[in-house]
């Protein structure tokens, strides 16, 4: 097939990938076109590898890419055969392929992005009203009170105690001399060193990882805590958010949208099990194996938000929690059940979890969230500490 037919096909292929949720821009398509000049087009393996190396930048997208490739460049005899939009996609596809075939031309157009809801910066609440709201359990709030609480949550900032990095910035009262700047300054005086420039270590907030339980028993809290996650994720850099019920889902990218409603829509899109059962041990184990090494570097703090009520009989929970607590600098368990004065760690899940967390805190009303913010910004003990 000639180069002339190749270019439109590549552009169409790029569009298919984009509609299937893979970020592919003109730069990627151009790169692919250039790459195809260097590989034998009859070699299907090389053809696939060339497209993948230039258009895909993350392993997470391989599955979608492969499904799209097989569907789009369907005829293995003629790898450049154009996609036939009239042919219906085969039945019973795996999820990735389903997503791709939905994205193929001819499929129903995807829903347009939700219109920007106006962001209401609610007027500050009257003092007494606010006092009541602060102490009210999220569970017993009316819809209106919940809306107020959500607005209050958006105002919370979560400053983590900063850790020294190995970078420096100029600072006249810094503890270290900066020879490079000193010599450069001396040039203005013909080589006379009149003053010593100084520098100071840059400090930086550690990464924050949020693990939130969205199973049935947490349903009342999950909604509002998701607001909390969204507020935190948008307020600072290096936040990774996960939710779990029976499965673990990374919602970091979905939460990145500044508009909470759009963000939650994106979350519910990728979330398989709102308000189902919980298997905390399995979720933590999955997190340990798939994500811990990728997001827990550089002294990360983990907030685990769950009531500790495990559908699976707390199997493997103790081991997973122990591994998790070893992999991060601080593991903080936020537990809405802790609000009851007579809270006893009776459930198997709670007893399995408790020995391994560095802190166990309540999280059922605005005041408890504020207290959390206060402790997180205090300089943390380096490791250990009991619950």
């Amino acid at each position: 097939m000639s180069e002339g037919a190749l270019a439109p096909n590549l552009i169409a292929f790029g569009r298919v990938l984009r509609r299937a949720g893979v970020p592919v821009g003109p730069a990627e398509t151009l790169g692919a076109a250039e790459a195809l000049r260097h590989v034998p087009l009859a070699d299907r393996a090389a053809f696939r590898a060339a497209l993948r190396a230039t258009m895909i930048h993350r392993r997470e997208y391989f599955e979608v890419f492969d499904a799209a490739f097989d569907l789009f460049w369907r005829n293995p005899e003629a790898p450049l055969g154009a996609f036939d939009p009239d042919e219906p996609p085969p039945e019973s596809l795996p999820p990735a392929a389903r997503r791709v075939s939905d994205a193929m031309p001819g499929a129903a157009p995807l829903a347009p992005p939700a219109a920007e809801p106006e962001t209401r910066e609610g007027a500050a609440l009257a003092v007494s009203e606010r006092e009541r709201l602060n102490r009210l359990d999220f569970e017993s709030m009316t819809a209106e009170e919940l809306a107020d609480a959500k607005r209050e949550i958006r105002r919370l900032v979560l400053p983590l105690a900063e850790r020294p990095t190995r970078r420096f910035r100029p600072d006249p009262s810094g503890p270290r001399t900066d020879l490079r700047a000193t010599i450069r300054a001396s040039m203005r005086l013909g080589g006379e060193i009149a003053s010593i420039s100084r520098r100071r270590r840059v400090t930086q907030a550690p990464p924050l990882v949020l693990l939130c339980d969205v199973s049935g028993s947490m349903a009342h809290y999950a909604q509002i805590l998701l607001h909390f996650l969204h507020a935190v994720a948008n307020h600072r850099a290096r936040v990774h958010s996960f939710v779990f019920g029976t499965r673990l889902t990374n919602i970091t990218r979905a939460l990145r949208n500044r508009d909470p409603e759009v963000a939650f829509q994106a979350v519910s899109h990728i979330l398989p099990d709102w308000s189902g059962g919980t298997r905390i041990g399995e979720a933590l184990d999955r997190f340990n194996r798939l994500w811990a090494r990728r997001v827990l570097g550089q002294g990360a703090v983990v907030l685990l938000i769950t009531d500790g009520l495990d559908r699976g009989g707390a199997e493997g929970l103790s081991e997973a929690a122990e591994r998790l607590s070893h992999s991060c600098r601080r593991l903080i368990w936020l537990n809405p059940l802790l609000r009851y004065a007579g809270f006893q760690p009776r459930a198997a899940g709670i007893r399995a979890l408790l020995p391994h967390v560095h802190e166990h805190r309540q999280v059922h009303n605005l005041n408890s969230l504020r207290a959390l913010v206060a402790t997180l910004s205090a300089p943390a003990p380096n490791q250990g500490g009991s619950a």
Partner: protein
Amino acid sequence: MAESSAPPLPASVAATQALLEAGGYVADRALATTVHLALTMGRPLLLEGEPGTGKTEIAKVLAAQLPRRLVRLQCHDGMDLSSAAYEWNHARQLMAIRLAESAGVSERQGLERSLYDRRFLEARPLLQAIEGSPALLLIDELDRADEPFEAFLLEILADFQLTVPELGTIRAETPPVVVITSNRTREVHDAIRRRCLYHWVDYPDAGRERAILARRAPEVPAALSAQVVAFAQGLRGDEFFKPPGVAETIDWARALTALDKRELEPATAEATLGVLLKYQDDIARLRGAELARRVEEAHEAGS
């Protein structure tokens, strides 16, 4: 500043595959294609994969076979300009100021020029890769460096040039071949990814792993090699915290050979498990009957 022009690059995907093969690296078609494209298109190659899948090895073999001068930058947290790119030699600069003073030079610009001379600049890996004979720059474990360093790297990857404020811009005469590896202890930023050709280095299948073992550890008996590979492949299918990489398989095969074993047996396997698995939870899962069963399976698969 190049002392010699760069040796020619392999002309086709097949030639690239043969080149890697000649260097002792058993590459599949997709990897050979990506390497070939990175070389011909002059784009950096980003290799991601689990630890121990041979990412760094690809760069070393390429450097040896092309041949190119290998410049390696091992990344670490908080890596800054002075350890990655260049550093002014302040002691020698101060000395030069003294000398200028005693020689009675007080003209400012002349002094400044002589003080910010290339002589006083110490080259670190990034500058070394841009200056001198054609190089292969290996940026190893980029995920260990922090985000500000990645931002700095963008200039180098885009134009193969480095700007020293006091001196000016230094440009590579022959752009270096750039290979970046990442173990995903942190996600590498999209801006870097977009500039690179991306390849995920997966665990090899049993056939390729045996071929790798034969090249890297020829002293291992064939039967043992097949069993060790089958055993390691079995571990990767299950959900271990850290399944063994190819590097671990090679180490284990060598360890067993050093103990004069010609076949895999439960007792020695248990005693040497620490070569293969590096986490206590994983080792504990494999003790006793479970281990015997897996050794048995490896015998069947390897025969």
